[in-house]
């Protein structure tokens, strides 16, 4: 329970308590995350790891918007990540698009796909929703497998290396240089983070959390629950599509695996490890997951076993994830008698 002073005058809190620290953290969440992302290539064991944290972190942020904030657990988000990646690659390979046009195609295409899948999936609820999203993502996977003339089928899509990204005013970024590429991709991730932060602070952000907490009550309060869910689904799909786009530019290939259940699973695990429904959770989760993978794969090819066991332990004993548990801990201390 909150103490009476907190209820009466939230502004009158002592300035140094963990609660106000939490508030400052909240206000500066985007600059803070971006600052951490800026130094990531220098603190992590490898730059490749840093790029992956960036891309999968963004993927997880998009997923978290739907799962953590709206309360809808999708097992098919590989469809949007993969669609973003494939459409980016395909628009370069087949239509000769520039990098910006290819990125736009990827994001818009992923959004359209998420509108279609979302419209079908939100007709169901709870456990059904998980099953339907998984099955529809499998449909996309097999379509990409069959349309091998467009997608390269089982071998994945190849041959669209973007060496140089021309910017306005004659500037250009050399994408073959790992560090330049990292910061180039980071700009888009930072913009997306700023966007997500704005969305969460908007009335719409309150609406999706209302739907998560109690759908019936949200409906009774006059929210259009279906529209709110669908919009959240599309935003989530667009962000995951952007992550896929970045991954295509980074790897210069799109493996078929980008659309597989495995990719959908990874994002669920990252979210759970970091903490669903928190702003920093996704990047924390992506970082921890990729570190486990990186370290464990040094001495065993069966690192998935370790990831699976860690995941089970988290579900059993730490369902709020790393960041979510830290927040809960800080809150408990903030409420302790002073």
């Amino acid at each position: 329970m909150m103490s009476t002073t907190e209820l009466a005058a939230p502004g009158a809190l002592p300035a140094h308590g963990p609660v106000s620290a939490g508030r400052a953290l909240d206000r500066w969440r985007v600059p803070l995350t971006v600052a951490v992302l800026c130094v990531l290539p220098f603190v992590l064991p490898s730059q490749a790891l840093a790029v992956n944290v960036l891309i999968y972190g963004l993927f997880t942020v998009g997923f978290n918007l739907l799962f953590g904030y709206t309360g809808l657990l999708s097992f098919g988000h590989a469809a949007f990540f993969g669609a973003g990646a494939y459409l980016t690659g395909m628009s370069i390979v087949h239509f000769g698009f520039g990098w910006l046009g290819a990125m736009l195609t990827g994001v818009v295409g992923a959004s359209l796909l998420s509108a279609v899948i979302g419209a079908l999936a939100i007709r169901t609820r709870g456990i059904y929703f998980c099953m339907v999203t998984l099955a529809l993502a499998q449909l996309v996977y097999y379509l990409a497998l069959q349309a091998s003339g467009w997608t390269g089928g089982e071998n994945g899509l190849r041959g669209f290396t973007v060496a140089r990204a021309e910017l306005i005013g004659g500037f250009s970024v050399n994408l073959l240089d790992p560090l330049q590429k990292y910061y180039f991709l980071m700009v888009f991730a930072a913009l997306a983070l700023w966007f997500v932060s704005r969305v969460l602070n908007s009335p719409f952000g309150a609406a999706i959390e209302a739907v998560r907490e109690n759908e019936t009550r949200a409906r009774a309060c006059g929210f259009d629950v279906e529209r709110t869910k669908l919009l959240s689904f599309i935003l989530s799909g667009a962000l995951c599509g952007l992550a896929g786009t970045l991954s295509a530019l980074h790897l210069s290939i799109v493996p078929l695996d980008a659309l597989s259940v495995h990719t959908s699973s990874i994002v669920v695990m990252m979210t759970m490890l970091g903490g669903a429904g928190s702003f920093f959770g996704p990047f924390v989760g992506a970082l921890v997951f990729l570190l486990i993978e990186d370290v464990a794969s040094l001495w065993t090819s069966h690192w998935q076993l370790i990831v699976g066991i860690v995941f089970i332990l988290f579900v059993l004993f730490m369902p709020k994830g790393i960041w979510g548990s830290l927040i809960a801990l800080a809150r408990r201390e903030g409420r302790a008698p002073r």
Partner: protein
Amino acid sequence: MDLELILMQLFSGLALGAILVMVALGLTIVFGMLGIVNFAHGALFMVGAYAGLWVAAQTGSFWWALLVAPIAIGVLGMAIERFLIRPLYGRSPDDPLLLTFGLGYVLVESVRITFGTDGIPFSAPEALQGVVDLGVGYFPLYRLFVVGVVALVLLLLWVALEKTRFGLIVRAGARDPLIMKVLGVDVGRLWLLVFGLGVGLTALGGVLAAPMRNVSPEMGTLVLAEAFVVTVIGGMGSLLGAVVAGLLVGIAVSMTALFAPEMATIVMFALMALILLVRPQGLFGRPGAGA
């Protein structure tokens, strides 16, 4: 296209569907009773197939594999319910789902470590090899046998659920576990048994499917998606729905393979999308039961 070919393909679809019925039935029984979806269901199907392979190699008899493997994996299922899922009752319904999903990973990797990553061929027993004349053409005897076994299991299940005291308790428990507790039924033990039964059924599906396809650690992934499609079409928690939709999907896939092979895997997902549009609760689902 001649009629005989179509009829033969219909029988093939029936055999394919029979396997799906086993898997979907296990999934839907557990959901109906415990209200949870087992995401390790596909992995347990695969573990069932490997257990069958191992028992057959040890005893040299397919019949022992068919009998022992499902029971052993069913017991494994009970242990999973008791030690991993039971602590999660009363928490968010997503938690058991996430846990079993992680468990699926662990099972697949464990099998990879134990049996290797390559697929292993598994041949049908001597007595079931060869073909039979169905009047319209020759049909693999083993597939006919699969349909027979599944029909027998369905009959036993129907008798157990509809005609025995145990079945009465199970059905009542699915309706209202709280009242059952008040009446003095040990609901925890009931759930343990039902989970074991559900897992046993998918393991049996795995053993039966083994001679029809290669046994590989990845064989569970597609099966899980297929089982989801079947349960969504049939209606979650409906046993009749699982049977009808399982056969329907099997036949639809098999028929599409005849006319447009590249569309075979895709057609069942399209079928599911269609059902979601016109009847979101599934063919036999109660409205509001989850959709």
